[in-house]
């Protein structure tokens, strides 16, 4: 798991937003808040800090908004960590509310009010009001319906107009036409004291459709905020040394080539540059996919996005942020996205067939009635009734309701779906391409062949390593702990940047680190433990497979999907993982190579899903038919991916495909139901037997059937087919009893 960069006060200042009168506001993401007690504790510790005006927790989004006063930000993150809450900076610059959701909820409220009240008046008309009362009720209905349609209908009219202007049609076109015509005809009927007005149909249609649309947006918004709450892995800024020695913290965008940058341990390199002072090791896993740290010294080039592990470095910037590796990846991503054929959502495809059929039916009905009876008014009334009864209310709910249910199921299992289209594309997947480092593997090294190292050496190594945050050191400490070896007593432990650790015990000098430093006359790479310059033991590390990688791939195969490995890492590392999982593999692939590989698969007609986490995977994620990234992925990767899985289990991949397939089945059933309803209702409407009462009943019934069918995904079906490897499900009582 890559470590998040440490956070400077300067960075906090940079990420805050001025509220005026000297008050600044900072947004922190605190993923571990989960109950009311946490809310109180967090608000209390932050509120007690000097300079903090107020702190307010949002439990739903697991974020804290802190308003503070002064030049230097209070130690917010340190305080939270002291209270046991890991926190990281959220983006205060981006407004965190989606205006679309608010607009939809307001439109929904207005439509609900209007349809309810018009329905109340309509019931009076249906139960036989005398003509004068009926006219009064129709006028009242028109008075309520006009502003409601103008306000709530905008959502559909706007989208329909945009589609028509491009010469296309979508689901909103027949909806808009139906609603507007129903209103116009009802108004005419009201003016001419006619018996039938469809104001109730027009408004309740909008209400039902807005319910579906609002749920759809709320689901996407929830996934978006959850993904946004993840730690940012790119540097926000860097400490720059000016001539004369003055240091300043500058945002990444202000860094220029030639500037001298100080990089502390645990920081990410902000822009491409060259090392001018210091030695260290860099974790490049997220940038190139290489799992082993790379050592750098004076004169070596470093890439933006790599993480400094060893010692402090001084860099000379070689490129501005917009010319750095990260920016290049972003450009490749955009190119890949533009090259991807635009996927047409199933609802839009249905609408493309549906709209012309409906409009032609209405037109031919009108013409038929004129020819048959010569009564123009009667002909128009019947034609409009056909349009109202076929208005795709059920069709408009059929797809979003299922997708909302599917997204909720996945959300509960820690998988975020960015939009409904991703679920539809997921169904077609017949090949999954995995990245290696950080995706199939944990992205953290593990000691291998530890059995060769005797306990005494391991105890000394663990004692030295416990003082360092280097991933290799942590792997050694973890290995000692799992073997039950107590760290030895070692004194005077110190860390030599870029070389290793040393300490002394019982008059002997121990060193743990690079062979050329630890051992007299030593050479090569790797990690060695030495005693007074003589080697005691050498340590090898490997990136560990995720616990359920094998299981995930087996269940993909069971579903008839092939998997393959596409990595930027070296051949030998890739082969080890590939043979372990029996996957075909390509190693040492450049980002462009990954995109090219996906393009060749797509050209061969394969629907490819890309699963990756690194910066080097981002263009491939954008190019794939559908893509998925773990929560530990780089920011651009997470934003490029259609799905993000938050818990570290790879079984998320087959699970997502499974839910998507079941959702697709329900969508098809729903479409069939909606079409079946039309097949029944249209002849009745064409014969002129439809009254507003019949229309209201038919429309409500079909909507309820479709929604009820979608709800089946939420329960029942899932329980019966739940996979045995539920990852994070509680242990069953039986299993718990067996271990007790």
């Amino acid at each position: 798991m890559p470590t998040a960069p440490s956070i400077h006060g300067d960075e906090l200042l940079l990420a805050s937003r001025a509220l005026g009168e000297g008050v600044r506001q900072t947004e922190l993401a605190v993923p571990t808040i989960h109950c009311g007690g946490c809310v109180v504790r967090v608000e209390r510790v932050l509120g007690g800090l000097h300079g903090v005006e107020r702190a307010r927790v949002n439990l739903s989004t697991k974020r804290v908004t802190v308003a503070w006063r002064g030049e230097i930000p209070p130690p917010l993150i340190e305080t939270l960590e002291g209270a046991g809450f890991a926190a990281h900076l959220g983006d205060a610059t981006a407004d965190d509310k989606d205006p679309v959701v608010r607009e939809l909820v307001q439109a929904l409220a207005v439509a609900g009010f209007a349809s309810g009240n018009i329905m109340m008046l309509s019931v009076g008309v249906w139960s036989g009001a005398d003509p004068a009362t009926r006219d009064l009720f129709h006028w009242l209905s028109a008075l309520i319906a006009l502003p409601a349609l103008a306000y709530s209908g905008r959502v559909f009219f706007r989208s329909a107009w945009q589609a028509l202007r491009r010469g296309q049609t979508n689901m909103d076109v027949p909806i808009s036409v139906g609603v507007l015509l129903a209103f116009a005809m009802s108004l005419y009927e009201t003016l001419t004291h006619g018996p039938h007005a469809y104001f109730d149909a027009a408004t309740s249609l909008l209400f039902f459709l807005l319910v579906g649309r609002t749920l759809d947006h709320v689901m996407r918004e929830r996934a978006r905020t959850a993904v946004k709450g993840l730690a940012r892995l790119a540097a926000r800024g860097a400490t720059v040394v000016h001539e004369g020695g003055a240091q300043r913290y500058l945002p990444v965008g202000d860094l220029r080539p030639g500037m001298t940058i100080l990089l502390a341990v645990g920081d990410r390199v902000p822009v491409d540059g060259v090392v001018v002072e210091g030695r260290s090791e860099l974790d490049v896993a997220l940038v190139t996919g290489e799992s082993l740290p790379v050592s750098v010294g004076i004169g070596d080039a470093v890439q933006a996005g790599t993480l400094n592990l060893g010692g402090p470095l001084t860099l000379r910037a070689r490129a501005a942020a917009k010319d750095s590796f990260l920016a290049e990846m972003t450009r490749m991503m955009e190119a890949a996205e533009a090259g991807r054929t635009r996927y047409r959502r199933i609802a839009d495809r249905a609408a493309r067939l549906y709209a012309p059929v409906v409009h032609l039916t209405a037109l031919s009905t009108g013409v038929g009635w004129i020819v048959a009876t010569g009564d123009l008014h009667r002909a128009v009334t019947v034609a409009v009734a056909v349009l109202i009864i076929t208005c795709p209310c059920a069709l408009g709910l059929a797809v979003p309701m299922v997708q909302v249910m599917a997204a909720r199921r996945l959300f509960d299992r820690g998988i975020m779906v960015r939009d409904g289209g991703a679920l539809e594309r997921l169904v077609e997947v017949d090949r999954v391409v995995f990245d290696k480092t950080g995706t199939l593997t944990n992205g953290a090294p593990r000691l291998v062949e530890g059995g060769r190292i005797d306990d005494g050496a391991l105890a000394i190594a663990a004692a030295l390593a416990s003082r360092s945050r280097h991933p290799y050191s942590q792997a050694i400490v973890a290995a000692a702990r799992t073997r039950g070896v107590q760290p030895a007593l070692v004194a005077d432990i110190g860390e030599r940047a870029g070389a290793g650790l040393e300490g002394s015990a019982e008059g002997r000098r121990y060193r743990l680190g690079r062979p050329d430093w630890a051992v007299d006359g030593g050479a090569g790479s790797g990690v060695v433990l030495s005693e007074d310059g003589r080697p005691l033991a050498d340590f090898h590390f490997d990136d560990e497979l995720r616990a359920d990688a094998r299981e995930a791939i087996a269940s993909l195969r069971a579903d008839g999907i092939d998997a393959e490995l596409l990595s930027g890492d070296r051949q030998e590392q890739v082969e080890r993982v590939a043979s372990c999982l029996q996957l075909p593999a390509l190693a040492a692939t450049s980002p462009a190579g990954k995109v090219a590989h996906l393009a060749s698969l797509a050209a061969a007609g394969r629907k490819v899903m890309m699963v990756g986490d690194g910066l080097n995977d981002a263009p491939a994620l954008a190019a794939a038919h559908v893509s998925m990234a773990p929560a530990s992925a780089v920011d651009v990767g997470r934003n490029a991916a259609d799905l993000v899985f938050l818990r570290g289990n790879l079984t998320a991949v087959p699970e997502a495909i499974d839910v998507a397939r079941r959702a697709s089945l329900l969508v098809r059933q729903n479409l069939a139901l909606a079409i079946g309803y039309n097949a029944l209702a249209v002849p009745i409407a064409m014969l002129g037997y439809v009254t507003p009462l019949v229309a209201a009943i038919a429309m409500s019934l079909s909507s309820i059937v479709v929604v009820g069918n979608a709800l089946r995904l939420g329960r029942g079906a899932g329980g019966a087919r739940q996979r045995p490897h539920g990852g994070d499900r509680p242990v069953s009582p039986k299993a718990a009893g067996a271990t007790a």
Partner: protein
Amino acid sequence: MTDFLYLIPIALVLGGAGLAAFLWCLRSGQYDDLDGAAERILFEDDSPAPRERRP
């Protein structure tokens, strides 16, 4: 029937008041944190919660 016509404006006004109240709640951010609101009702601290304002 016509004796009860006065009920109609009453129904409409009441409904409209409900709608206005809902829109006001929505705009003043009372639906921003539904989980939090469910927990906050249990807090013993009676001091008024700091209002969060978005500029």
